């Protein structure tokens, strides 16, 4: 019985809790038991809030909280503030910090009746594609514990794939929701930038960071999306427009009819760079979508090949500025304050001790790109390339409804295989980064296996047309089905 509860979708669970077929406490307990049974091996969670979760579930069972997802457990990436619950962003510099306030999306999740069960592991400050840069040890991929779960949000994806939670929240700056989704066989959706609030999200790259859903089904992703999205006065980049009808679009897509939908195949992404198994699964899925009535149109986006270089100038530049707040004064770690050292010395020792290698590399890289003398050639030029990438998207969307590609060029790789050369790690986000620079939405949906490991299919849509990607993703899911990892 409890095993069954952890395998149900959020939509099913919400229905059964609403009809009182099961209680929210039973559902929450089943997931807490599952975490206790498997998380020692998976390490998806940095903190499990057992007491808080059970209290929230009791409130649902007493009828004090209602809402579309009342009683359904959700795991939150540890880069999002949760009042009174430890939040580290995967970094030693915030070890033990308990935020004094909730992020807007956490408030909205509570209003929707969800039960927050814990905080998930991630690459430090969301910088990475494997969780190997977490200061608290890597998360393991439930499909193969010797392999990475993707990153930065590998904890959220692994928690959902390992049936520790039906719903999770991730954040996507260059692919940190979609790439973990692809390699764990789960659904990961990055909403339109500004479609979900960044208030309470510990900033990495403010012009790119976007919170979004991580689930096992497309319908669940749409339900979670609809709960967290919408304008927020506390985020000045939040878009003051109605949320697209993503749930309706997911249900429409699930009917399996894509007649008249034009899929743009990005020519520049079709060939080199992807593993053969990834390309085979992608092309097979494309054929399936054509059988559902979709039309495939090849489009050229000539500047996409410069997206990765532009991203690795823009994101580190913003990070070097954002991470200046970790100065050992207002929160977190302070090192070397012996009464003799100056503020500047204490700051430098604190940051040296508190940040891991990837964070330091990116801070130094960003500081370089913003330096007088290099600014025009690096950061300034990258911003111009960003404009050209946006124009590539806009002209493609004049001809097609959505763009499609593999989510990531390779399946889950073994631990340690891409850490010695940081640029090899960066290639994991080759296909996801353009969307972030443009600001549009993108989703990864499972599309099959290659050598027994999950492959993700990416659908990219125009800004504030998030509903389109849900329709296509749900249609693909209706013919591929959901993927089930081997028993842990």
């Amino acid at each position, binding site marked *: 019985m409890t095993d069954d509860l952890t395998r149900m979708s959020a939509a099913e669970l919400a229905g059964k809790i609403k009809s009182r077929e099961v209680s929210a406490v039973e559902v929450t307990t089943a997931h807490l038991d599952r975490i206790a049974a498997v998380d020692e091996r998976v390490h998806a969670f940095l903190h499990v809030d057992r007491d808080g979760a059970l209290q929230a579930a009791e409130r649902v069972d007493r009828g004090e909280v209602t809402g579309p997802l009342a009683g359904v457990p959700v795991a939150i990436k540890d880069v999002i503030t949760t009042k009174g619950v430890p939040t580290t962003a995967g970094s030693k510099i915030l070890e033990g*910090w308990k*935020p*004094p*306030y909730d992020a807007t999306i956490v408030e909205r999740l509570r209003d929707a009746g969800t039960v927050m069960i814990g905080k998930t592991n991630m690459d430090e400050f969301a910088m990475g594609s494997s969780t190997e840069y977490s200061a608290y040890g890597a998360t393991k991929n439930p499909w193969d514990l010797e392999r990475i779960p993707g990153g930065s949000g590998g904890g959220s994806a692994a928690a959902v794939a390992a049936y520790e939670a039906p719903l999770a929240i991730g954040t996507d700056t260059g692919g940190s929701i979609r790439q973990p989704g692809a390699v764990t066989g789960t659904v990961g959706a990055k909403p339109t*930038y*500004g479609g979900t609030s960044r208030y309470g999200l510990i900033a990495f790259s403010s*012009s790119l960071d976007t919170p979004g859903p991580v689930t096992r089904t497309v319908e669940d992703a749409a339900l979670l999306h609809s709960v967290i999205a919408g304008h927020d*006065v506390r985020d*000045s*980049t939040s*878009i003051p427009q109605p949320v697209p009808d993503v749930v309706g679009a997911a249900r429409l897509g699930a009917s399996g009819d894509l007649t008249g939908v034009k899929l743009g195949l990005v020519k520049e992404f079709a060939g080199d760079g992807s593993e053969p198994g990834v390309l085979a699964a992608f092309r097979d899925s494309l054929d399936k979508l054509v059988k559902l009535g979709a039309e495939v149109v090849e489009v050229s986006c000539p500047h996409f090949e*410069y997206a*990765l*270089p*532009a991203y*690795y*100038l823009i994101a580190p530049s913003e990070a*070097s500025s954002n991470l200046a707040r970790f100065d*050992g*004064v*207002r*929160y*977190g770690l302070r090192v070397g*304050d012996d*009464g003799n050292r*100056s*503020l*500047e*010395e204490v700051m*430098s*020792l604190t*940051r*040296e001790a508190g*940040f891991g*290698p990837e964070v*330091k*590399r990116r801070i*130094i*890289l960003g*500081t*370089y790109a913003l*330096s007088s003398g290099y600014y025009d*050639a*690096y950061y*300034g*030029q*990258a*911003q*111009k*390339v960003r*404009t*050209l990438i946006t124009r590539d998207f806009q002209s493609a969307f004049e001809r097609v409804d959505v763009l499609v590609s593999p989510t990531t060029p390779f399946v889950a790789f073994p631990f340690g295989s891409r850490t010695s*050369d*940081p*640029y090899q790690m*960066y290639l994991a986000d080759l296909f996801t980064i353009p969307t972030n*620079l*443009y*600001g549009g939405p993108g989703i990864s949906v499972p599309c099959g296996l290659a050598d027994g490991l999950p492959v993700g299919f990416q659908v990219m849509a125009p*800004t504030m047309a998030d509903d389109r990607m849900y329709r296509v993703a749900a249609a693909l899911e209706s013919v591929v089905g959901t993927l089930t990892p081997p028993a842990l």
Partner: protein
Amino acid sequence: MTISREEVAHLARLSRLAVTEQELDRFAGQLDVILQAVARVGEVAADDIPPTSHAVPLTNVYRDDVPTPCLTQEEALSGAPDAFEGRFRVPRILDEED
């Protein structure tokens, strides 16, 4: 070679990172590889192209000028490594002779 060990040391000082000698050796080589890769943005002819700093073209976003509740002093100081009489306590900023 796009970046020297000395430049990395200088950037680390600007970034308030007390990096070790071993880190300098490692980072210099790694950053050189990364910089050579990202320098490819220079291949794009973009002289007349306006820069994009942000995906959402919004300017001057103001909320209504109405006071709303905010953190108490106690809450704001709750995560501080050191606090004293309702304030953040920091190491000395000025030399004693100043």
